[in-house]
């Protein structure tokens, strides 16, 4: 039941904030904060409780399950369930949710009630995505997080917000429809095979599909997820949406919405279509590497701070794709770490970009510089997160990227080497941020103030998390271990190697055959 309560508290909190916001703006802030904090604390207790038994039940990754019929006629049920990965991402959702509320505390002044309604409903949608074990329900939540986000960007964004909101909506909606087609296709194939028409994830697992169709169905899911993630060339909605969204919006976009794409691949694409995923792997890894380099180079050339950070996300998400399609434990653990640490580090950078915008009324880094003198605290924290973003050991992102690269090295040496070179580029753009914003001479006349108490609390939470994950990531690793073991079970490495050889052998034989024929 805790799963239902988690969504319920967000949706209910949102409605309450909307209604009470008419009378008192402060009330809706506090309601949002309370709703998220309650959920967060409940999740933490749940995590601690589960953590004790995690290593005992290595074979069964599922922790808790809730099922209730919804539309039995079509085999649709309200089915929620979580494993380590879902739990981790839920904790992350509520954690970033609290920060999102805190960093829009003074930022948002208009239509406060509706703002927090949207914020909480986005988070409810995201939580639902991480929990839904019924494909119809999953699609429902997938769409549910989209619409409030559209409002959030379109109403509370900056100058070019309407364009950005449309772009975001159309990209995700169009790709989402492909997924819906794929879901329905899968539903009918499974129904025809077995006579049971159901959207239940567990029953759809292991559906026998002919390879040709499986590939197309897989592609339907895949496109929805990689647009969200995003990978090059489907990334262009992201810089616009990120830079125009309000601070909390950017935080949720970068920290959570992108993660739903990665989650979808891990949860649906790999287990439902293992064979097709394997065929796609070299291409996916290639696109991942292209994203790493392309995103980094674009990040370097940006002058809009939020756009710059948005492109670094493109680069970092390239690592995620690279790691997922390496199909081994090290890389997959790295991917999960990357999801968490990227949410924290990029979230922190977006929050600071928002704080700077609030103080300087610009996002253009050419109009900043020399801010260290007046804001040494923010400078130091920005330095720390720039270092996290370039993968400095001791901070969480390093663990993630190192594990991904070590894992990917096993699968594809050449692509991994190129991806590793991406680390040089990440150093170049990260240091550029610090230099342009905080160092150099200051041209400013009017004073700016350093962190306020509320801002210190937000940044302290993020800083502690990223250092903790960098020095002792074991709790995260252990939590997702059963789930990753299960995934790895679908992709045994020995099989993969022999397959590769066979794959290479076939065209060679064909070639030889042709040569013989000519003779």
């Amino acid at each position, binding site marked *: 039941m805790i799963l239902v309560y988690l969504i319920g508290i967000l949706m209910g909190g949102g409605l309450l904030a909307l209604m009470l916001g008419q009378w008192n703006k402060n009330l809706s802030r506090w309601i949002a904060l309370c709703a998220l904090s309650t959920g967060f604390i409940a999740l933490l207790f749940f995590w601690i409780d589960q953590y004790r038994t995690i290593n005992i039940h290595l074979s069964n990754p599922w922790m808790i399950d809730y099922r209730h019929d919804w539309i039995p006629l079509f085999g649709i049920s309200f089915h929620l369930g979580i494993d380590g990965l879902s739990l981790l991402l839920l904790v992350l959702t509520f954690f970033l949710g609290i920060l999102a509320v805190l960093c829009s505390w003074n930022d948002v002044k208009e239509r406060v009630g509706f703002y927090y309604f949207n914020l909480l409903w986005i988070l409810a949608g995201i939580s639902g995505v991480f929990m839904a074990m019924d494909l119809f329900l999953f699609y429902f939540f997938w769409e549910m997080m989209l619409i409030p986000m559209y409002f959030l960007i379109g109403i509370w964004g900056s100058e070019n917000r309407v364009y950005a909101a449309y*772009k975001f909506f159309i990209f995700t909606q169009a790709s989402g429809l492909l997924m819906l087609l794929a879901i329905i296709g899968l539903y009918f194939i499974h129904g025809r095979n077995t006579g049971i028409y159901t959207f239940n994830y567990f029953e759809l697992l292991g559906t026998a599909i002919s390879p040709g169709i499986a590939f197309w169905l897989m592609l339907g899911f895949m496109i929805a997820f990689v647009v969200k993630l995003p990978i*090059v*060339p489907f*990334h*262009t909605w992201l*810089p616009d949406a990120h830079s125009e969204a309000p601070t909390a919006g950017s935080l949720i976009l970068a920290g959570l919405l992108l993660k739903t794409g990665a989650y979808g691949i891990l949860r649906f694409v790999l287990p439902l279509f293992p064979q097709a995923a394997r065929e796609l792997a070299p291409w996916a890894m290639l696109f991942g590497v292209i994203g790493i380099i392309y995103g980094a*180079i*674009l990040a*370097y*050339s*940006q002058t809009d701070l939020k756009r710059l950070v948005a492109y670094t996300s493109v680069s970092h998400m390239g690592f995620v794709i690279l790691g997922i399609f390496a199909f*081994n*434990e*090290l890389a997959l*653990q790295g991917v999960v770490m990357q999801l968490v640490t990227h949410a924290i580090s990029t979230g922190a950078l977006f929050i600071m970009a928002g704080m700077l915008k609030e103080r300087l009324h610009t996002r253009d880094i050419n109009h900043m510089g*020399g801010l*260290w*003198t007046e804001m*040494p605290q923010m400078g*130091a924290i920005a*330095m720390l997160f720039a*270092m996290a973003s370039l993968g*400095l*050991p*001791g901070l969480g992102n*390093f*663990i993630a990227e*190192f*594990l991904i*690269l*070590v894992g990917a*090295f*096993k699968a594809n040496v050449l692509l*991994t*080497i190129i991806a*590793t*070179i991406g*680390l*040089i580029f990440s*150093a*170049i753009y990260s*240091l*550029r941020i610090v*230099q342009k914003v*905080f*160092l*150099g*001479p*200051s041209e400013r006349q009017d004073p700016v103030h350093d962190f306020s108490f509320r801002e210190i609390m937000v940044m302290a939470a993020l800083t502690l998390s990223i250092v903790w994950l960098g*020095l*002792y*990531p*074991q709790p995260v*690793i252990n939590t997702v271990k059963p789930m990753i073991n299960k995934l790895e079970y679908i992709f045994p490495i020995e099989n993969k190697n022999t397959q590769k050889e066979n794959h290479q052998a076939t065209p060679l034989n064909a070639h030889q055959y042709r040569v013989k024929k000519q003779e």
Partner: protein
Amino acid sequence: MNNLLWLVPTLPLVSFLILALAGKHVSRVWVAIIGAGSVSLSAIITLIIGISFLSLPPATGNYSQTLWTWMQVGGFNPKITLFLDALSLIFVFVITFIGALIHIYSVGFMADDKDYSRFFACMNLFVFSMLLLVLADNLLLLYLGWEGVGLCSYLLIGFWYENPANGYAARKAFIITRVGDTAMAIGLFVIFYQFGTLVIPDVLAKAPILWHQGAYMATITALLLLAGGVGKSAQLPLQTWLPDAMAGPSPVSALIHAATMVTAGVYLIARMHVIFQLSPIAQMIVAVIGTATLFIAGLSALTQYDIKRVLAYSTISQIGYMFLALGVGAWTAAIFHFVIHAFFKALLFLAAGAVIEALHHEHNMFKMGGLKNKLPVIFWTFLVGSASLAALPLISAGFYSKDQILWYAWASQSGNPLLWFIALLGAFITALYTTRMMILVFWGEAKTAIGHHPGKLMTVPLIILAFFSLFAGFIELPHNFGHFTLFSNLLHQVLPETVLKAGINTELQFQVLASLSTFGGIYLAYIFYYKQPQRIEKLKQSGFAMNLYFFWFSGWGFDKLYNVLIVKPIVFIANINKNDVVDKLYQGITFVTIRLYQSLSFTQSGSLRWYVMGLVIGAIIILSIQIML
């Protein structure tokens, strides 16, 4: 006492945390006490550990202390483990001891700086990272220290951040060393897949079993590690960051050049010596890189007018000697030169810093002069440091360490006359530029008035360092006189002995040649810069000499080359694609859609005539089609 080991890196770390978190609220006196005190305490603990390590050596020759398991993923479980053996003990000693002296000096040197606590915080973090680097028992932890050192160098080179040039130098240092680090990271991947572990002793134990002599994988691994070392140690072709790294305060330069950072590459190669031994090609490359670097950097040092840049190029050159020694298998000689170099280079930088401060931040040697009598303590200590750098025979420590390398460059099994000859030439150049620097700064007429005299906090560390620059050489004496091998005996627990070529028995003539080259250099500088300065003027008339001068002065054009080949193209691509060419595709789609809808909505004009006309034309078309069919 060995279980105190964890305190050695922890103390500077704690001090860093205190200063970073609460630096604003700590008074300057306490900043100095915490900042310099923590490193000094580490140095004292190191001495205690060192004494107990030497008097009661552990049975295995090493001691390790596991603090916690960093992570455990599949078969990959790096631990936070400190590992102490003779090699790391020597490095820890140098880092903490010289680090402490530099910190004490900084208390005086930085006394007027507004960012006092930030300075000490970064310096402490620097010492911590370097200690972690040399104490790490696995390559991942070593990599943590390795990158931490890079971060701290970035923070400290760009310490005076208001000047964008300093920021540029800092970024250059970070990014160029990062190029090497990336290659090293790939090296770690290779090692992990070959051995299934990154624990250094395990890797070294397994390597000779898994790889035969000259194995292809050994060469690749060694070269990847070497690339990391080349970056951090500022060797060819990644040496260009070091001369610019002078942007930071002088104690920072002393710390980077003597105790930390640039010696990391030497440490890495010495630590992973088994892999290098398995690949004669890689070892040859190490030696060639070292030799080429020492020669190129030496000639560049000869042409600089900024005193700190002379010292910077001399560091590159001296590290080149260490690489040469590593390359010819003279492992202990390399480490010996590292120790001696650390003493005299720290001394030279700190003394140069005192000179610069006394002369109102004047870096140009041609505007100095005549300081011999005005700053006697600085003069004498600087003289000792210079003598050691120039390897003045018998009395300076630098002679004993450098002579050993020269001798092995010829006599070791993988030595070779050409390497020896260039190294000898390098010794001559070293003496030449060192004497030039001495004469320009301390002799002749005074060109800049002295602002203020260095205090006790600054001079005492100089005197201590001068003492070691003179006498530290006596812990290792050549075969032909004394044959006292305290240092190499200790190191031979870890590093193999140098194998000599057969049939070589006389070291004496090499020592005579080395001494002659030193004296030759000193004499030449004396003629050109003191006795007959008009000769320099005459040389300046010749176009060829001036071209050569500018070529050397610019560091052999490496900066320009990289700028044209790498930096410019990447910046160009980044800038033309600023608006993301991929987005054009989607903009194209919207554009077509909008045009289409506009042209269609054009027909919806609201005027009845048009609609009737449309109907009629439509009807005609349909009818005519029907008729025709």
